């Protein structure tokens, strides 16, 4: 009962809220954060806060840390952050919390040192559905491979873990290799080429990274392997329209990153205004997205991942 009352009390305005993606120059985060796409900064603007996106251009903790520290120095009220490396960031995030700053993680969590995590989709759901989509396309049979981002990326590693669990349901599908494209187009291209050369019988590839999937699609497209090798993964629709249209990637998934940012911004402002706490069961209305309730482990789930295909991909613009 208290939570609804708090919302009615209204939120503080003029809070300094910093949005810290893993890195700048990454279209996924640009979509999640910017005003134009309806992301976190739009929500902050609507709520009358002072929002700002800051980060480095490489997704390493050593590039992200000075930014966080500078934000603390700048007198932040809340940080919305996608953690490059939880252990490395924790001491600093804890220092922030000690100073009364609300820390909300989105996209990638730092479980022990944040107020709240806004989860884009459950890792289990992503791992399972990726395998299911590919299984449908290759008729449950054949060698498959994964093109991941960095070998130490938490998200990808958790998803791959759940993929492996799900694969137990498909005895005729064999995961032959996990390769790392480092979220660099050129490396993604090379590792995909390597897969094609090394595994002539390869039937499918899952690329659960928004840089890796388009790069892998381009390789398959250029190698005229489409139809022979099926491809799915996670990416933004703009990057994939071409490959969905020409059949290289019939289906792929993603949540709406803008919604993720938007929700994280609302959560951060609610928390920073002391309108809600991070206890399970607390709920609030996140603008256009409607009502959300804090779940266990101080997390909020955005919703199930969204499957894009020929029929719907052109409706999206991010």
């Amino acid at each position: 009962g208290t939570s609804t009352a708090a919302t009615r009390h209204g939120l503080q305005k003029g809070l300094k809220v910093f949005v810290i993606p893993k890195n700048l120059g990454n279209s996924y985060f640009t979509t999640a954060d910017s005003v134009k796409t309806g992301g976190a900064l739009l929500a902050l603007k609507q709520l009358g806060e002072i929002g700002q996106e800051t980060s480095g251009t490489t997704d390493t903790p050593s590039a992200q840390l000075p930014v966080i520290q500078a934000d603390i120095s700048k007198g932040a009220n809340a940080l919305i952050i996608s953690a490059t490396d939880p252990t490395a960031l924790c001491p600093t995030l804890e220092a922030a919390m000690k100073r009364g700053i609300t820390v909300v993680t989105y996209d990638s969590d730092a479980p022990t040192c944040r107020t709240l995590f806004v989860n884009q989709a459950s890792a289990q759901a992503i791992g399972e559905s990726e395998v299911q989509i590919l299984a449908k396309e290759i008729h449950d049979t054949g060698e498959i491979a994964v093109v991941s981002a960095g070998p130490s990326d938490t998200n990808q590693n958790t998803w791959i873990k759940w993929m492996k669990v799900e694969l137990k349901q498909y005895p005729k599908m064999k995961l032959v290799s996990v390769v790392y494209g480092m979220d660099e187009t050129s490396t993604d291209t090379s590792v995909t080429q390597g897969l094609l050369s090394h595994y002539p019988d390869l039937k499918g590839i899952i690329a659960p990274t928004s840089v890796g999937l388009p790069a892998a699609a381009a390789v398959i497209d250029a190698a005229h392997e489409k139809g022979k090798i099926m491809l799915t993964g996670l990416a933004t629709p703009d990057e994939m329209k071409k490959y969905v249209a020409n059949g290289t990637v019939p289906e792929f998934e993603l949540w709406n990153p803008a919604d993720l940012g938007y929700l994280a911004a609302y959560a951060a402002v609610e928390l920073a205004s002391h309108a809600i706490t991070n206890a399970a069961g607390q709920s609030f209305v996140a603008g256009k997205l409607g009502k959300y309730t804090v779940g266990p482990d101080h997390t909020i789930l955005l919703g199930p991942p969204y499957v894009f295909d020929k029929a719907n991909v052109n409706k999206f613009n991010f």
Partner: protein
Amino acid sequence: MQRELEIGAEQAEATAPRSTGEASPSGGRGRDEGAGPRAWRLARWEVGLLVATAATVVLGVTTSSQFLGSYNIFSVGLSNGEVAIMTLPTALIVIAAEIDLSIASTLALASSVLGYLWMHGWPMPGAIVAVLVLGGFLGLLNGLLVTRLGLPSLAVTIGTMTLYAGIAEIVLGSTIVADFPSTYTTIGVDAFPHTDLSYSAVIFVLLAVIFGVVLHATPIGRSIFAIGANQEAALFAGIRVKRVKTGLFVVSGLIGALAGVLYTLRLNTAEYDNGSGLILSVVAIVLLGGVSIFGGKGSLVGVFLAVLVFAGLQDALLLTNFPEDATDTVAGGLLLVSVLVPYVGGVLSRLRRSTARRQLGSAP
């Protein structure tokens, strides 16, 4: 710099009377220039940097009231400590007319190995010592390739830069080690007791003093300058050129490994690509500090100030919401300006002199 200042001042008195007796053909030149201007010329670079440091502080304070706040000072030291430490051996090596581009990769390999050893149950002190020894060996390899095989260090260390980073990748692969004991990782959280400085910043200051004394006040330091200015002449003067150079590379490896340990513990993360991309900052700071890329010239005071300018400016820009990596642009710009200023100055003074001479010529 201090050395030159000192000599410049006292030498003037000591020499002038004696040399007047000599019918030196060029003796007339320069006698009227007192010690002051001469010392001033020598110290010009450092003075320029001092001004730049002051300007940075002013910029920082105007952009944010927090700039000189204790938390900000702590975090600036924390984020720049390892780079700063690595500039010290790099400065010495560049003064000796060599270069070590592999030092940041040594950091990466040290980090990987530290993680690997800890993961495999080594006690922390043992692992740290092992990693430092490893760093020394990596430097020794560079040194031997350069001095014994006579290979150009630029090429050698481009190679070992890739090689060491590559081995780091093999050692840890996709593993991340992030459970170092908190007694050690506190260096990433707490300031050095009784100061606002991070541990790495304190270590930097201490090492800077040591390196400064070695470079400017010991026979080894003089040898480094001589080797850098003319290696062959140094050899003919009985300086153990190969040994000094090898020693410098070993020190560089050692310090690289030390930076690796600090980096790992500060982030509480051993990961193979730790420290990638730092080498360019290290070299840029050293050059900004007035060390000649051709060797034989430079001072640690300059390098120290360059560290302050670099770190301060980067932080001031962060406080104004510059994208973190675009601050490197400013560092690059600073470097470019720093090399162009002497050129423009030279052109101007040449102009001035030639006008002066023309006037002189027309006078009588």
